[in-house]
């Protein structure tokens, strides 16, 4: 897996490179927009980590160029700008995900993982994890043939976990995708809902599917 990091702040670029390499990725660095575009054209990357505020060419200039050549390559934008509507703006720009500095590195890793492994389970096909079955169309869940009743939120949460099966999803990611919100307070709500979900889909059974990844988030093992 090869990642291009376009980031003008030297120290940020260097910890990103170090951390991503520790996590097993191959990393190229570009310190400005032009260099980023040159490197993008010269090699084949699986994902681009793009700072939006760059010298020479900004991230907003680059995204359309990247998209033109490789429409499906995931782009994660990084910015020192804030919060809510910027996030919406960023996603409208055509990047796949969006992180505001300062961010937790574990959060970044989880998001990269989701992006590079995505495309597996989008559509409306039934989702399966071990003996747990979720039908997004009929909105039905069963485990080992036994039907399980879930509330709307519980269902949405389980669906999100199952679509990202075997990957770590952070609380922030869950809040953004399941609650469509981005308030700190809701990350605690996630824990409560995970607990509800466990009571229904895990505790009555031998094998526990939902696992806590300490300090990061949750993962559903299938």
């Amino acid at each position, binding site marked *: 897996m090869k990642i291009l990091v376009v980031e003008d702040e030297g*120290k940020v670029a260097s910890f990103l490179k*170090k*951390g991503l390499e520790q996590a097993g990725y191959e990393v190229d660095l570009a310190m400005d927009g032009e260099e980023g575009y040159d490197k993008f054209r010269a090699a084949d990357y699986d994902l681009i980590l793009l700072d939006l505020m760059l010298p020479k060419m900004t991230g907003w200039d680059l995204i359309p160029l990247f998209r033109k050549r490789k429409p499906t390559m995931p782009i994660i934008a990084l910015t020192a700008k*804030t*919060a*809510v509507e910027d996030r919406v703006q960023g996603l409208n720009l055509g990047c796949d995900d969006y992180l505001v500095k300062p961010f937790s*590195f574990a959060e970044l890793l989880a998001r990269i993982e989701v992006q590079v492994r995505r495309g597996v389970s989008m559509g409306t096909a039934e989702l399966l994890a071990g003996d747990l079955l979720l039908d997004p169309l009929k909105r039905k869940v069963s485990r080992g043939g036994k039907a399980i009743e879930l509330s709307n939120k519980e269902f949405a949460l389980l669906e999100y976990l199952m679509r990202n099966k075997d990957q770590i999803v952070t609380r922030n990611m869950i809040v953004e995708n399941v609650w469509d*919100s981005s*308030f700190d307070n809701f990350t605690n709500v996630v824990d*409560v809902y995970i607990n509800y979900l466990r009571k229904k889909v895990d505790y009555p059974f031998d094998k526990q599917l939902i696992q806590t990844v300490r300090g990061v988030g949750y993962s559903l093992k299938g």
Partner: protein
Amino acid sequence: MNVRSLRFKLGWTNALLITVVFLAIGFIRYEVLSYRAHLSFDSDLLEDARDFATRLHFPESGAVTISTEGLPPSEVLALERIRPYFAVTDLKGTVLRPELHSAYIQDMLDAGALSEVLRSHSGFSRAEGVDGRQIRFYSLPFAAGASAEQVILHVGQSTEPIEAVIRESLLIYLYSVPLIIFVSGAIGWLLAGRALKPFEDVAQVAGLITSKNLNMKVVTPHKEIEVQRLVDAFNSMVGRLNRSFEQLRQFNADAAHELRTPLAILQGETEIALNSMDLPEDTRSLLASNLEELDRLTRVVNEILTLSEAEAGTRNISKVPLDLKPLLEDLVEHLNLLALDMDVRIHLPQLSAAVIEGDELWIRRAIINLLDNAIRYSKPGSNIWVAATVDGERVRLSIRDQGIGISAADIPFIFDRLYRADPARSRNSGGSGLGLSLVKWVVEAHEGTVHVSSRPDEGSEFTVEIPLARAHSSISGLLQG
């Protein structure tokens, strides 16, 4: 009516001045009237006395007669008026022919009231009648009959009729004083009101300018130089204030922004260092603790940035009709989950729809901050009550807890940034110290108000009032952006 108002003072001064002038004019008029009335009285008396003297037949003895032939009736009448008031003396003032006197004069002679008149040989004098009547006399020498002995004729006339006229005019004057005071006061009050109206208007419009809309200017339809000067001075002061505020906000935003990159580096590097396997345990726990602090620092910086951006207006509020009912139900449902963790319950009674003009994102954030705050300071096992009632053109949202409360000394400051009532207690509970500042900003950006009432150890109640969608102030039309 405020006695300290300029309007009252002007009205009152006006009444006082006009009354003084009125009284002064009245006094002069009275004096002139009285002088001229007496003057004309005297000249009439003189003429009548002379006529009387020419017409008087004064024999040595026997009846005195007055010849009236050939006289017009009016002069006959004048002579008749004099007849009861005349006396004759010799040059020493000794009364002659007392049988000629009328009973009235006889009474005056008996009372000695005429002594001064009788001493006079010629000219005017006065005396008081036994009934208090004022009588003016004119004395003139008179040749009595054939003996041609010089006697003095004293002819009198009551001044009562002219005194009555003068008195009456004075009374009319005095009686009209209260009316003058009232009328001039009322006119002064009205005039002062009219003169001060532009200033009232300007003050009212100026009162709408707060730190949130310092880029506004006061405009007034009044074109008077004095008003324009005030408005110009005010606008230029607000302009200077605005520049200072802007610099301050920009500084906040810049400072917070500048902090983000170093924070990102610190956090990233620390996390990656923690991931490497070969760290001694104490270093690892130190780094982990640093990471926690960094997380808190990040949160504070984020909130400062949000708040300063919000205040600088770079963060837009886009208002659309927003029903608080589903929003509250949703938020209470979710935050109840957090509350349960602390063994606290949030109650929300049945609500009716309350549609405001609002930005859902910001309103949601403000309500979360209030609920979060209530949960954070609640005691285990206690309750939080949320209520939203429509009251006229506003909706009143109240959030009441049974928590630790806020001491009266702290209440004025709790909406200030980074203010903490009890540093030790609240820092552990994880607040950034900016939550309530943001609430206040959001509520005010929605033309609402937020209040708190609290008793230490019994709980606090936060009350937010926001205008409903249809009620919108029109006075803001006088402010120009």
